[in-house]
Structure formats: structure tokens, C-alpha cells
């Protein structure tokens, strides 16, 4: 089999079209698991921030979860706050610095369990912040326990035969809940299971930050991410598993955009 030498850039005339890492990361090395979706989503967010010219004017507020490991890698002013409290902390920062883009990075355990009150109240107040939710349907960092976002049938460390409505109740679709409140400006659900879904995530994250710049209210992008370790599946099986489990309960797409033309009421 002919293999190309990929140890250094090509000798032939060429141009670089993609870098290892976004420039807002200080290093490529991180401790997240093989096949984890979180670094993929974080790349997209950081690239959009740079693209929108916000690299020198944004503050990140991180919750507690595996993504928290990125706090030491981000070349962004950032703070790690109490579990679930990111939207409340971001509220304070944004009110003191209204011209700075303020965004949260949270997991489903962080946002939908520990901090459900914070995200809902921040939305109801119409806080002008952008919230990024990395939804893998488990408390990944602590070993794959069930969250309020785990779907019916999902096997987790404490629902080993699958989540049932009788024993564990129903999952909370946070994006739809946030969209139902008047204070939200933009809500979308995306995924990082393949290159096309990553491109769509990029478009949604861009709009979310634009709505904040326009002062429209709270924006939320939920991104479904792979957690092969917490799901007890092989890394290469994570993308299919994601779409078979969370993907079936949580439809992808834009749920609300206040800035969009009011087509439905135009007739």
C-alpha cells in the first residue's frame, strides 16, 4: 500500500487550509477521552468567536464537567463557577461589561440538573448572554451517571437496564423549555457526529453570538456530543450511538430565532 509522508508539510507548492487547533487554544494537548465530542464542539465555538472579531473581547464562564479541563487551555478570559451557576455568574459579568461577549460552557448535568433554575431565570430575565450546552446525556466527568437529559432507554451507570419513565421520570428537553420563555432570542440544537453536522453547529453558534451583539436576549445552542466512556461503548461507535439515543429524542435544528422574519404571521 502506498502511503503519503505526513510527518511534515508537503514539498510541492501548497497552501495550508486548516490548522491543528483554533488560535484561541494555547495547546493541542488535553486529557479528554478518545472519541469525546466536547473538544470538537469547543473548537467550533472558539473559531466562531475569532471569526466574529471577538477574540479580544469575550469572557467564558465554565460549569463543571469534562469540558472544565479546557479552562487551562483557553486563551480567553474565563472563570470556572459553582456547578450549574454559569448563567448567573455570566449575568453579573455581562451587566458590568455590556460591550463584551459573555458566554457559558455547560454540560447537561451542569445545566439541566444542578443549574436548571439558573438557566431558566437567566432566560426569563432576558439576559444578553450566549449559553453553549454540551449534551451527552450523562454526568460524564463523574463516570456516566444518568442526568435529567438522559433519554428513555438509555443505559447509564445508575440505569444499567435503561432509563424508564416509571423509575426515573421523563427527560427534560431544555432547548424547547428555554425557547418557550419570552427572554430567549435564539435557540438551536446541533450535533458534532459528522462534518456536515459540525458545519451546521458553526452556523448556529455564529447566529447565537450575533444575537448577543445585537442585544436581542439570551441565546442557547445545545450541541449533542459523544461520550463513549460514559456510555460504555467503543470510541468509534460513539457517533452512531449518539444519533440512535439522544438524536432520536432531541431533534436537531433551529428552534427559535427572534431576528428571523416573522414568516408565520405574515399571511
Amino acid at each position, binding site marked *: 500500500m502506498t502511503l503519503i509522508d505526513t510527518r511534515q508539510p*508537503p514539498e510541492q507548492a501548497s497552501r495550508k487550509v486548516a490548522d491543528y487547533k483554533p488560535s484561541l487554544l494555547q495547546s493541542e494537548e*488535553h486529557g479528554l477521552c478518545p472519541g469525546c465530542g466536547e473538544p470538537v464542539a469547543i473548537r467550533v465555538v472558539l473559531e466562531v468567536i475569532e471569526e466574529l472579531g471577538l477574540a479580544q473581547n469575550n469572557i467564558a464562564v465554565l460549569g463543571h464537567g469534562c469540558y472544565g479541563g479546557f479552562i487551562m487551555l483557553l486563551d480567553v478570559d474565563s472563570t470556572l463557577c459553582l456547578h450549574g451557576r454559569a448563567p448567573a455568574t455570566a449575568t453579573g459579568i455581562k451587566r458590568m461589561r455590556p460591550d463584551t461577549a459573555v458566554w457559558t460552557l455547560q454540560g447537561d448535568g451542569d445545566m439541566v440538573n444542578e443549574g436548571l433554575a439558573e438557566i431558566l431565570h437567566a432566560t426569563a430575565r432576558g439576559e444578553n448572554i450566549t449559553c453553549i450546552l454540551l449534551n451527552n446525556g450523562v454526568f460524564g466527568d463523574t463516570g456516566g451517571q444518568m442526568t435529567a437529559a438522559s433519554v428513555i432507554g438509555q443505559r447509564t451507570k445508575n440505569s444499567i437496564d435503561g432509563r424508564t419513565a416509571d423509575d426515573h421520570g421523563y427527560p427534560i428537553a431544555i432547548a424547547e423549555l428555554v425557547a418557550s420563555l419570552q427572554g430567549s432570542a435564539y435557540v438551536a440544537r446541533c450535533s458534532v457526529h459528522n*462534518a456536515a453536522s459540525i458545519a451546521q453547529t458553526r452556523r448556529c453558534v455564529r447566529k447565537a453570538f450575533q444575537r448577543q451583539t445585537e442585544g436581542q436576549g439570551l441565546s442557547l445552542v445545545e450541541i449533542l456530543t459523544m461520550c463513549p466512556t460514559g456510555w460504555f461503548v467503543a470510541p468509534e461507535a460513539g457517533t452512531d450511538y449518539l444519533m440512535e439515543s439522544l438524536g432520536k429524542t432531541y431533534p436537531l435544528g433551529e428552534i427559535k430565532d427572534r431576528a428571523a422574519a416573522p414568516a408565520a404571521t405574515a399571511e
Partner: protein
Amino acid sequence: MRTVTRGTLVIAEDRCKGCELCIAACPPNVLTMSRTGNRLGYLYPELKPGCTGCTACQQVCPDFVFEVFKFEDPVLFDTPPEGARPCP
């Protein structure tokens, strides 16, 4: 057989954690997993001729393993016909 190749990669193989997401993501299917492990003990991707420089592998990789280049002019690589085996 000559394979038209429009792009190429630099693969930081020692950073790879062997998840194989890049293998499934590559539209022309020109990435294969190595047979020996890297510094961390994981198998890592290797590139065959035919890359288009589409960046799909770079986007799906959780471990920031790829840099992608596009050739100014496509490069032709001589490759053995599909299914050809080396002499024993």
C-alpha cells in the same frame, strides 16, 4: 494506477488517541489505521493517495491531530491497482 491527489495532511500521530472518527469521516476513504501504536500506544491514521484537502478529518478529530494542505496543482501518485498484493 495513477491517483489524482489535491490535498495532503500533516498528522501529529503521537497526539492521536485512536478513536477512528477520522476514518469514517473521510469522503474519499483515504485514511487507514496504522498497525503499530504511537507514543501513547494507540493506532493512528495513515494517508493513502487521493486526499482532496476537504478538512473533514480535521474537523471531526477530538485531539487536534491534523493540519490540512491543498496543492496548487494536483499531484499524481502511482499506486498499485486495488487488491494488488505484494509478492511473498
